[in-house]
Each structure stands twice: as C-alpha cells, then as structure tokens.
C-alpha cells in the first residue's frame, strides 16, 4: 500500500498524471444513455473508438497513441521516448517524442502507428523511455535514503516528453545547503536532465472516500469534469474493484460502463461539492463496455486497492470506519448475502441475491447482460452516484468480490445523503449489479493483488 507516505502518494499522482496525459482525449456528452457502444472487448491495451468532437483526438490518433504506448519501448528501445495527444490549437495530433531523430526511425514509427503523417508531430526527447524507466527505478530505490538525509521529496517521476521531474519541499532545501546545492547534488547523481522544482510542503492527507490516493480504495467518490468553469457539470460515480490485465500486468479500476466516456479523465472528488470538482486525478478510461448484450463496465487506468471503505459515506474529516479487503472474486448466487459500497450511500450489508444472472434494461440499453438483482428493505441502500461501487460478501473470514453497482429497480425514494448534490438524488432498495465474471472474461482480467 502506497498510502502511508504522502511522498509516495504524490509520486503516484504524477505518474497517473502522465498516463492520463498520454491517453486522454476530452470526453463529451453524458454517458448514461447518450452513447451506446462497446469498445475493445478483448484487449484492454488498445481501446478502439472514442467519442469525438472537433477539439478531440480522432480514433486513429487515439489508436496510434495506444499502439505506440504499449509497443514503442519494445520496438525501438534506443530511440522511442514518449507519446501525447494534441498540440497548441489542434487536439487531433499524435505527438511522438524520439531520443534520436532520423527519418528511418520516424518512418517506422509512422507505419506502426497507422496515423497519417499530417496528424503526427515529432519532438526531441532528452532520453528514451527505457532510460527514463531505469532512472525512475534508481531514483525510487534511493528515495527513502534521500528523505533520510533531509531532502524533502514531495514527488518524482517521468513527465511528458520523457523528462524526469523531482519536486522537493522548499523549506527542506535550506537544511541541506540550499536550493543550488540540492540541484547540483541531484543532477550529479542522476544526470543533467532532471527537472527540479521546489514547492511548499504538501497538505496533510485526509484519506477518506473523497480524499484518497493511490492505491485507490473501492468506494471512493469518482467524478468527471464537464461543462465549463462558469457552469460546472460533475458526473458522479464510485470506484470499484482493482483488476490486472493478465498478459501485461497493467492495472485498472473497474467502474460502471454507463458512467464515463472512453479516454475521459476521472477524478476523486464529490460531485458539486466545493473542492470536489477538478480535484484529485485518478486516471483515464481505457476501456468501456456499454451496449446491448454486454456488461455495464469500464476500466480506469489506475492502481486500485483490494481494500474497500467500510461505513457511511460521510465521516468527520480525517476519520474513517476502516476498510475490508477483497480476497477473491466470484459470481453471485441466489441467496448470497451481500454488501454494497457506493460512495454516496456508503456501505450497506443486508442485501440478498434474488436473480443471479439476468439481462436488465436501463438508461436506454435494453439488454445489459449478466447482472444480478439484490433486494433489501432499505430504500437508502443505493442511490445516484453509487454506480461502480464494489459489491461483496464476507463469509467465514473470506471476502468475495462479486461485482459493482449498476442500477436500481425502485429508484424513486429521495436520498437522505447528499440530498442537495447531483440535482436531488434518488435512492432505492432493489439493486442491479454487474457480475464480475463476465467482465473478467471479456477483457482477460484478474483481481489485482
């Protein structure tokens, strides 16, 4: 778990930010019912079609970007640096950073990316991706020693364009000889290409559903920022179960497919609550399944935790009710006693599985596949914004993750939690959840351990 150290938290955020930068396009439209498509059902590494606008990267740029992201370091270890999307005034451009610049290499990259040359901009990188990752491994290994020596590391990691960024607590620099001495020491040790910043010490973390950090817990508030600065629109959902693509070890957090658009950036924050908008970046949507005959599921490219929040949605600042950790995954069965854990309604146990594997109509999708229906007598069991939250059972000390929250059959009770948020929330007692098994097989995923 990385959460015990604010230093490691910030480092993870920086890396997550990098991932978001290289994979992100701008999302558009409300996903719930606005678009019906399933993308890339067999391969989490290469999402296919994104929603586009004139200010978004086209699908060919996104596909080329992801292809290069996954294969570039292996194909051209001595030349490949990094990728990004968008340049000033034109989002539909694939930016490729190469450490060595020659026409032969650029030609190979263009052929492999499959993106027209007019949509590609080559940039010079100061080091290759392989070199950057080696540097990152070395720096990370030394980090605790540096901190012990008085270097107030706040964050470190690979930035866009294959730069290596190190941020230190400005006040700590004085304790070890001043900023110039710190910069000299670090560049001497780790190379001249370090980008070194000094900033005030980071705030103390609260570590709750609304203020989490990698590895992200299940039951966190999720949010996407749409609209404009003048009229903010938040799209609330909940973080679910951590998964890994078995083939590569790539890490994802599962949430509901109706929540967000492919490539959309997802934040940890409470919808429409001050501080929740545009807050803590979790990652971007890499894969989405939202079509008739398929599960309601999507993946956030981020490092999740098997731990899920216990207790109610809101706790006094800095306080939580602790967590429960998923041991294994299985599909629900009729009669299974379950807990649900939406960020907005919090943890509620006392659900029972009725129909374990049905297709459900919701949000204009007339056949969301492989869902289970849970019943309870609590009309506040789940509510809007809880989609994606983990569903699980702890039986004789073993916690089985079985799926994520998707919809509610009787969603006509006013929620008592967060009533003013999200335009007046509706709650219910009969919950449809997305079973985990079909999601795992659809994308060849396993529980992230």
């Amino acid at each position: 778990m990385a959460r015990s150290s604010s230093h490691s938290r910030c480092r993870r955020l920086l890396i997550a930010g990098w991932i978001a930068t290289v994979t992100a396009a701008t999302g558009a439209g409300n996903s719930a019912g606005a678009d019906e498509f399933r993308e890339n059902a067999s391969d989490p590494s290469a999402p296919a079609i994104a929603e586009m606008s004139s200010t978004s990267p086209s699908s060919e740029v996104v596909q080329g970007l992801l292809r290069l992201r996954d294969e570039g370091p292996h194909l051209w270890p001595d030349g490949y640096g990094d990728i990004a999307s968008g340049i000033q005034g034109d989002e539909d451009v694939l930016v490729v950073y190469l450490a060595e610049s020659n026409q032969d290499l650029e030609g190979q990259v263009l052929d492999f990316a499959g993106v027209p040359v007019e949509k590609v901009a080559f940039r010079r990188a100061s080091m290759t991706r392989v070199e950057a990752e080696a540097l990152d491994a070395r720096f990370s290994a030394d980090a605790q020693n540096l901190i012990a020596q008085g270097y107030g590391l706040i964050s470190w990691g690979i930035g866009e364009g294959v730069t290596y960024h190190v941020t230190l607590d400005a006040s700590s620099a004085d304790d070890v000889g001043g900023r110039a001495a710190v910069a000299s020491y670090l560049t001497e040790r780790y190379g001249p290409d370090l980008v070194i910043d000094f900033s005030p010490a980071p705030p103390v973390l609260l570590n709750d559903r609304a203020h989490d950090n990698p590895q992200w817990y299940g039951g966190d508030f999720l949010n996407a920022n749409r609209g404009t600065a003048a009229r903010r629109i938040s799209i609330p959902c909940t973080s679910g179960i951590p998964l890994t693509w078995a083939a590569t070890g790539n890490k994802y957090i599962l949430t509901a497919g109706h929540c967000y658009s492919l490539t959309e950036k997802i934040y940890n924050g409470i919808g429409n609550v001050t501080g929740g908008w545009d807050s803590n970046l979790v990652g971007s949507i890499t894969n989405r399944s939202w079509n008739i005959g398929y599960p309601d599921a999507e993946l956030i490219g981020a490092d999740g935790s098997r731990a899920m929040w216990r207790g109610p949605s809101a706790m006094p600042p800095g306080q939580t009710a602790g967590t429960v950790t998923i041991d294994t995954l299985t599909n629900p069965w009729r009669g299974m006693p379950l807990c649900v854990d939406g960020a907005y309604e919090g943890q509620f146990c006392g659900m029972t599985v009725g129909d374990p594997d049905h297709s459900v109509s919701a949000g204009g999708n007339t056949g969301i596949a492989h869902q289970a229906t849970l019943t309870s007598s609590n009309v506040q069991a789940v509510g809007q914004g809880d989609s994606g939250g983990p569903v699980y059972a702890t039986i004789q000390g073993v916690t089985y993750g079985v799926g994520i929250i998707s919809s509610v059959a009787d969603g006509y009770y006013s929620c008592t939690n967060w009533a003013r948020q999200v335009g007046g929330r509706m709650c219910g007692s009969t919950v449809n959840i997305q079973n985990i098994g079909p999601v795992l097989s659809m994308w060849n995923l396993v529980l992230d351990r």
Partner: protein
Amino acid sequence: MRSRLLLVAALAIVLTACSGCADPSPGPVATNTSAPAAVPEPIPTPWVGDAPGELSGEVVNALLRVRDDAPGRFPETYAGVATGTPASEDVLVVYLAAPTTQVEEEVRAMAALPDGKIQIEEAYQSLEAAAVIDRQIAAAMPSLLARGIQVQTYGVGVDGVEDLGVTHPTAEQVAYLFDRFGSYLRIDPDVGPATLL
C-alpha cells in the same frame, strides 16, 4: 416477492377466466377472433430470504464446486444452485431437472456435504435447455418491443424457468409470450425500466 407472485397469479387467473369469454356488452363490438391461448399455471418462484443461521465456508465451497463442475458433467440435468432454505441459511440447494438416482448421488458426492446441508430440488428444465429460450428472447427483443411488449429483465432462474420482467403486459401479450417461448416462463408483470446510478 410474494406480492409479485400474487400479481402473476391474479393475472393468470384473469387470463384463464376470460380466454374465450364472450363480450357481454350489447351492440356492435370489436371482435377478437384470435382469443389468447390458455396461459399455463404460474410457476412459483424458488424461495429466497432471511433464514436462521449463518452461511458456512464448507457450503460456499461446495456451491462453487457444483456450480463450476456440474453444468459440464450433467448438462441435461443441472439447472442451478442457491443457498438457504426457510429453515436454515447454511444449506446448499441444487436444482436438477429429472435427475436419476445416480446423478443425484454424484452431485451429493461432488458437494461433499453432510445430508442436512444439501437439498436437491426438482427443476423444470436444465440450464442448458433454458439458455436456449433465453437466447431466443434476447434475439427477439426488437420484435417484442415492436409488438408493444416491454421486457425489462430476462434471465434463467435457478429452477430452469425463464424469468421475464415486463411492464404491464396485456393478456394478449402474455399469451403471445407463452405461445412463442413455451410454458417455462415466469412473468412478473409489474417491472419498469431500472434507473442507472
């Protein structure tokens, strides 16, 4: 769940009572020469609910074993699994369609549970047979909607019966569903579209 069952039962009674009835109102009326076919007796929903006791690890492990292995070993018999009976939470219930004594014994051996912790129930048909109907319904969704039949949920129950949640179907629509998909349907007539969260 009980109220839903009563609804289905009531609907079935109405349908049964009225099928073939003459319109008692005087004067010219719209005549329906294709009166709905007789609707089968409603199939009760397998029990689910709170029960005394606590689910044990051995029952869970047995359920997972049976759920994983039985469909492949007994495709013509296996229908589904559940936990809990009105008497105890800690019971594995296995639904089998027309099981032979030998199959029952093999399923019990597979579960490896004491007698009091496993119960075999008769299913209407196997999961394999029910899945055929389920796929037919999935494929028919557009045509059902075109007929005004709003199927909101569908799927195979543990007892091999296809469960359909439909928004206020007419008697004709219910009869049509039975006519098209057979008698192993359990129709809940009071289901609306779910709300995404």
